[in-house]
Structure formats: structure tokens, C-alpha cells
């Protein structure tokens, strides 16, 4: 017999924990909570305004506005379904198998299925809150442009609530299957191959079609028709996103019976998969958890067999990584050891390289495809605008990564202070080495992408040099800011880097990084010698570029120096 209320107890205790977390955050730092709220409200308002203006613009296309809006909605839900699925897979894996609460609950008289139910609901909430934040302003903007009655919003909320269940169930099952079959290394390689295959597939499917200027001007309908054919996959009737989009669109059109039909299809699937998941997954989940706690999956045994009988080389031979780092000149052995350690941790942490790969991979795929537009981009204004937008996108990607991975570095090293802090290397040199490593690695990506962007836009060498210098300075600043603030706002209690980032320092770092990027792009655009109306005056160039340099020093170098001083004081205590 199940202990009565075990699930209720888990919900209650975790809700209490969450509430305490918020109330303690409010008590400790009203500034942080205020900043977070302001950022959330600002983001919602800005995205609502952008969506509203965008949808209004699309509506102005005579005879095509509604069709394009509908297709956009189908596409949006289809892509969000895939994103939710991936998000659920990763969060479910962590929450079900790498979570100490799960292990604790397994030792208590709680049925396995109840533990799974609780972890499933927790994972769903964690995986989908950002999705809800993203979609709410869009649906509000859509409703306003289509002048829908109030009940549209209520129905949409219910439909979205149903919609998020399906990717969560599939994500949780995929996580269980992966945990059962794969160890960390197999998982990494599998995800990498899957991502590469997905990118290649997308690049092939969405391969831009070259149009002549003439066809763009005279055969708009033909061009649009081909674009609509390419995106028709989003209207495949067996996709849950299709049921969701159709229910929303039909409700907007007041075709309530059709809307109810698609809502019923969605509901029946949610009930079926929800039932299978919440009633029958307990023992499968326990088997997978046992496999994970038994150090490896089914595939890991094969590797051991392949290695069986071979002498253990771990202690004797320098790895390829160590030999490679040893070739870098003017690096002392202790710094080399720290670099090798950080690179190993980077590779072994799927989240770090996975996010880097996804963010810069997508940007790279987009920039490579710029060549398809280069014949249309003959106007200097558009070339300039696209180049600056690329600079902004590249820096925004970098800011996300520096905040997420560079900022918590000092806190994490402080936790392991007995290794690095007490070594003759010293904390100040350790932090400097980490900064140079992060700067060097990220510069390879950002400078490479910006040079590629300039090349694809057929820019001359002098302009490539200008943008190259700009991204180098921005990469230095963003890394300096994250390293410096990480040292100024350390958190030695947490071992989880994502929790370190979610504190005041991490939030401050992210917001400051975004503001810096915005300010820098404006200053660089003002100071760029190549204006829309020809070359700019030297005074203007001096003002813009000088302002950018001073701004970069203030935002990047100053926190870095202050952070290093703080580290030096920390070491003397």
C-alpha cells in the first residue's frame, strides 16, 4: 500500500524550499530581486512590442498577411516543440539521475513511481518556464493584432499547459533510455553526432535558393510559394505542434468546433502518454537509476573489454592534450597544469561544450549562408547593418557563455582552494591564467566568426580589420568583466556553477554584459569610418572609437583589476 500523501509531502516540502529561497533572496538582496524583476518585465515588454510590430508589419502584405502569420505560428510551435524536447531530455537526465534528492528518496518508503512522478513534474516545470516566458508576449501580441475576445487568452493558457506535457514525457523517456544504455562519454559522443547530423540536415533542407533581382521584383508570389513549400513540414498533421497551432488559429477564427477537435486530439494524447508515464515508468526509472549508480551503462562494458589486458598508461604517458599545451611558448609548468585541468573539465562537462557548440554553431551556419545573399546585399547601408548585427549577435553569444562558465570559475576554484590556492601558483596567477585561457579560446571563435562574416559580406581588408579589432576588444572586455565580477562576488558555498551564476553577481554580470554590447555597437557604428553617406569625419571617428575604448576599459579592465586585488587580499587572509 502506498504511504498516503507521499507525493503531496514532496510537493509541499519542495514548494516550501522554493518559497524560502525567494524570501531569503529578497531579505538578503532586494537589489538583486529588483534587478531580476526589472529584467523580466523589460524583456517581456520589449519582446511584446517587437512581436506586435512584426505581426502588424506582416499584416500589411496584401492578401498574404494572414497566411504568413499562420505559417509563422505553425513554425514557431514546431520549433518550440523540438526545443522543449531537448530541454526536457537534458533537465530530466540531470534531475532523475544526477540529483541527490532522488538517491535520498530511494532509501525511504516511497514507491518508485511516486518518486518518478515528482521528479517528472519538477523537470517539466524547470524545462518549460523559459518557454512560457518566451511565448506569452507573442501570443498576447497575436491576440491583439487579430482583435480576439478575452476567452482566447484563457483557452490558449490551457492549450499551452497541455502542449508542454508531451515533449516532457518524451524527454523523460529518452533520458531514461540514455541513462540505461550510455555512460557519460557515449552520451557526449552521441549528442555531438546527433547535433552534427541535425545541423547538416537543417543546412541541406533550408539551403537558400538563389533568386535573381528580377524574380524578386516580378515574381514575388512564386518566391513566397517556394518558401511556404519549404516550411510545410510544420503542418504535418501528426505533430503535436500542429494540433496546438490549429486549435489556437481556429479559435481566433471563431471556428470553435474545429478548435475543440484539435484541442481534444491534444488532450487525448496528453492523457495517453501522461498515463503511461505517470503509472508505468517507476520500475524502468529505478532500473536506469541503478545502472547510472553502477558507474556506467551497457556500452561502457564494451570499452573495458577492448582495453582489457593493456597496461595502464594513465600515470606514465602525457596525453595528446598535455603535449599540445606544452608546445605553447612562455607558459610555466604550473600554469600549464591549470590550463590542462580546465580544458579537461570543459570537455568532460557536456553542458559547457554543448552550449558553446549550439550557440556558435548556429551563428556559424547563419554566417556561412550569408553568401547566398551577398549578390542582393549591394547597398552599403545593408552591408554595414548586417555586419554590425553579426558583431552584436556574436558578442551576445559570448556574453551568455562568459556569464555562465567564466563567472563561476573563481568560486569553484575557491571551493577547491586546498589544491590551487595553496599551491605555489597562487590564486592571483591562477585567476589570471583562467582569464587568459578563456580569452584565448573565446577569441578563436569570435574572431573567426567575425572574419568569416566580413568575408561573406565581401568587405575589404580595412573593414575586416576594423571589425576584427572591435570583436577582440569586446571579447577581452566580456571575459574581463566575468572574471572580475566572479572574484568580486564569489560564492564558496555552492558547488553547482549554475547556482553560483543565478546569484546577484551572475545576474549583474549578464545585464552589464548586455548593456556593454548595446553601448559598444552604438559607439562603433558612430565611430565607423564607413557611414551610410560615405566616409565619416575624423572627429566623429575619434569620438566613437575613443568612446568605445574608454567604455571597454571601464566595463572590462576595471572589474578585472578590482577582482584581482580582491583575490590578492583573499590570499593574504
Amino acid at each position, binding site marked *: 500500500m502506498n504511504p498516503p500523501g507521499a507525493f503531496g*509531502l514532496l510537493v509541499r516540502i519542495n514548494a516550501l524550499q522554493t518559497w524560502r529561497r525567494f524570501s531569503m533572496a529578497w531579505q538578503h538582496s532586494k537589489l538583486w530581486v529588483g534587478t531580476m524583476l526589472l529584467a523580466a518585465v523589460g524583456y517581456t515588454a520589449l519582446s511584446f512590442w517587437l512581436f506586435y510590430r512584426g505581426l502588424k508589419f506582416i499584416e500589411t502584405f496584401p492578401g498574404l498577411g494572414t497566411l504568413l502569420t499562420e505559417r509563422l505560428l505553425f513554425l514557431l510551435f514546431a520549433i518550440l516543440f523540438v526545443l522543449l524536447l531537448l530541454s526536457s531530455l537534458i533537465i530530466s537526465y540531470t534531475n532523475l539521475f544526477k540529483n541527490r534528492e532522488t538517491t535520498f528518496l530511494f532509501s525511504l518508503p516511497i514507491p518508485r513511481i511516486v518518486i518518478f512522478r515528482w521528479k517528472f513534474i519538477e523537470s517539466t516545470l524547470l524545462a518549460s518556464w523559459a518557454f512560457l516566458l518566451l511565448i506569452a508576449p507573442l501570443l498576447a501580441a497575436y491576440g491583439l493584432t487579430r482583435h480576439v475576445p478575452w476567452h482566447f487568452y484563457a483557452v490558449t493558457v490551457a492549450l499551452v499547459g497541455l502542449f508542454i506535457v508531451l515533449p516532457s514525457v518524451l524527454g523523460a523517456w529518452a533520458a531514461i533510455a540514455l541513462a540505461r544504455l550510455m555512460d557519460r562519454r557515449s552520451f557526449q559522443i552521441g549528442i555531438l553526432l546527433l547535433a552534427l547530423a541535425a545541423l547538416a540536415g537543417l543546412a541541406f533542407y533550408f539551403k537558400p535558393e538563389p533568386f535573381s533581382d528580377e524574380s524578386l521584383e516580378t515574381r514575388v508570389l512564386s518566391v513566397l510559394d517556394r518558401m511556404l513549400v519549404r516550411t510545410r513540414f510544420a503542418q504535418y498533421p501528426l505533430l503535436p505542434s500542429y494540433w496546438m497551432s490549429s486549435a489556437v488559429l481556429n479559435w481566433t477564427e471563431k471556428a470553435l468546433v474545429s478548435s475543440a477537435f484539435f484541442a481534444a486530439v491534444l488532450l487525448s494524447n496528453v492523457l495517453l502518454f501522461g498515463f503511461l508515464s505517470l503509472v508505468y515508468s517507476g520500475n524502468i526509472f529505478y532500473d536506469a537509476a541503478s545502472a547510472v549508480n553502477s558507474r556506467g551503462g551497457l556500452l561502457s562494458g564494451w570499452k573495458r573489454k577492448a582495453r582489457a589486458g593493456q597496461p595502464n598508461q594513465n600515470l606514465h604517458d602525457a596525453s595528446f592534450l598535455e603535449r599540445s599545451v606544452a608546445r605553447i611558448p612562455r607558459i610555466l609548468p604550473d600554469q600549464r597544469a591549470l590550463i590542462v585541468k580546465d580544458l579537461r573539465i570543459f570537455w568532460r562537462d557536456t553542458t559547457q561544450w554543448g552550449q558553446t557548440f549550439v550557440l556558435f554553431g548556429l551563428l556559424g551556419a547563419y554566417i556561412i549562408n550569408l553568401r547566398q545573399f551577398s549578390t542582393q546585399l549591394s547597398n552599403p547601408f545593408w552591408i554595414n547593418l548586417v555586419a554590425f548585427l553579426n558583431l552584436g549577435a556574436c558578442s551576445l553569444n559570448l556574453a551568455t557563455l562568459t556569464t555562465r562558465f567564466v563567472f563561476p570559475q573563481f568560486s569553484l576554484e575557491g571551493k577547491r582552494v586546498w589544491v590551487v590556492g595553496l599551491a605555489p601558483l597562487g590564486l592571483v596567477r591562477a585567476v589570471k591564467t583562467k582569464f587568459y585561457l578563456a580569452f584565448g579560446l573565446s577569441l578563436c571563435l569570435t574572431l573567426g566568426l567575425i572574419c568569416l562574416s566580413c568575408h561573406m559580406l565581401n568587405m575589404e581588408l580595412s573593414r575586416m580589420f576594423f571589425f576584427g579589432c572591435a570583436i577582440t576588444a569586446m571579447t577581452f572586455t566580456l571575459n574581463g568583466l566575468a572574471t572580475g565580477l566572479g572574484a568580486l562576488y564569489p560564492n564558496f558555498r555552492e558547488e553547482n556553477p549554475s547556482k553560483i551564476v543565478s546569484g546577484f553577481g551572475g545576474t549583474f554580470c549578464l545585464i552589464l554584459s548586455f548593456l556593454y554590447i548595446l553601448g559598444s555597437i552604438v559607439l562603433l557604428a558612430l565611430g565607423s569610418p564607413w557611414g551610410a553617406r560615405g566616409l565619416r569625419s575624423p572627429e566623429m571617428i575619434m569620438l566613437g572609437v575613443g568612446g568605445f575604448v574608454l567604455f571597454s576599459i571601464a566595463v572590462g579592465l576595471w572589474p578585472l583589476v578590482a577582482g584581482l586585488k580582491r583575490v590578492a587580499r583573499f590570499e593574504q587572509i
Partner: protein
Amino acid sequence: MIELIELVKKFGDFTAVNGISLTVEKGEFFAVLGPNAAGKTTSIKMLTGLIKPTSGSARIAGFDVQTQPLEARRRLAYVPDFPFLYDKLTPAEFFRFTGQLFQMDNARIKANAESLSGRFNLEPYLGKAIEGLSHGTRQRVAIVSALLHDPEVFILDEPMVGLDPHHARVLKDVLKEKSTGGMTIFISTHQLSVAEEMADRIGIIHHGKLIAVGTRDELRQQSGGEGALEQTFLTLTAVEANLIAERPQPKA
């Protein structure tokens, strides 16, 4: 009360636990010793149902931990070497939570929590958030919450780590009292003095095998030596290590 029957756990080709069979009677205080990576924690994880054995079975109070997990866990309490606690809760809230999970009524939870908190000097901390407590205090909170429902079997993995000498003494006294009262205690430790002082019987696990089991005197006889448990332990594990070294190794 605790039965391990031909318990085997393999991680790929590596055998972490190799056919351990053992019975610990009701009210017995059993200590398991062994070098690092001998298979003690893996055995405990199988015993508590956290991982599945490759073969063999484990029983708690007559209930198989794999096929009758709920019945087994209702009679079991387990404190791992690094226990999980909800950081934002207070110890008092955590005790209520665990008590309710074991279907205890509020009056019994209150009475047991008061009594045990008094024994472990936790009263000043009952209303404070767990995240602010020291390692030793957190360890005491975990022990009190485990004992709250009066388990029939109490399994502890390195319970003395982080405890100051005073509270280590309190824990030993409480465990002895509980054992005398009929609770079966199964403790894994590296502190030979704890096993020597407290245990009715001691088992030594080495390379995944239970190489010796018995009272302190019986172990001394098996080792063929005199003196403290430390000497006995070192002799037995060294003998076993030499035996393994003398076995023909597979050719590379």
C-alpha cells in the same frame, strides 16, 4: 534481520562485490571493516536498494529489498557518509517531513524528535535553516531523522565523520541502547576503535569478498595473532592481499 545471500555486483568486468553471504540477527551490532574500495559502500547500496545486485539478494526483516522494497524500507533507516538534507528547511521541519513519510502521527513525531534532539544537543538549531549548520550538526540532524520512526534495522556508512568526540560518544551510547533494545545495527567504518568497542560481530571485506567474520576474539584467532583489532585487521587483509598476488594473473 539482515540477510545477504550470495550478493554479487559487477561494474562491467570489475567485480566490486563477489558473492557475499551474511546474516545479522535482530538486536545485533554488526560492524563492517575494509580498506578503501573494498566493496563496503556498494554492499550497503545493494542492501538499501539504491542499486540492483548483479546476482544474489538482500533481505531486511525478511523482506527482499528488490521485490518488496516498500516493506523493507519501512523497517529500515539509512544514513550515508554524505547525507542529503533539504537546505532551506529547518531541522524541525525536516523531522516532521521524514516522520510523515513513515506514516507517524504528529504526536509521536514530536515526542521522538524532542527526545532525540535532546540527546544530540540539537535544540538550539531546531529553528535554523539547515544550510547554515556545520557538517557535524548536519550529520546529527540526519541521524535523528533516521532514528525518528524507530527502525528495526539501522544502517550507517561512516557515521563518525564530522562528529566531535562528545557527539561521537553520544552516538555510540544511543546506538548501543538501541541495539540492546532490539534494533539491528549495521555500521561501515574505518575507525577500528568504534568496531572494537561497540560491535558484537565484525566483518572484514576485502576485494569484494567477506574474508573474515566473527567476534573480536574469533577474528584474532583467525589472524593467528595477539593485540588490538588494528593488528588483526592488518594481518587478515595482508594475508588476503598476498593470496591474491600469488594467484596466477591473466596474461596480457
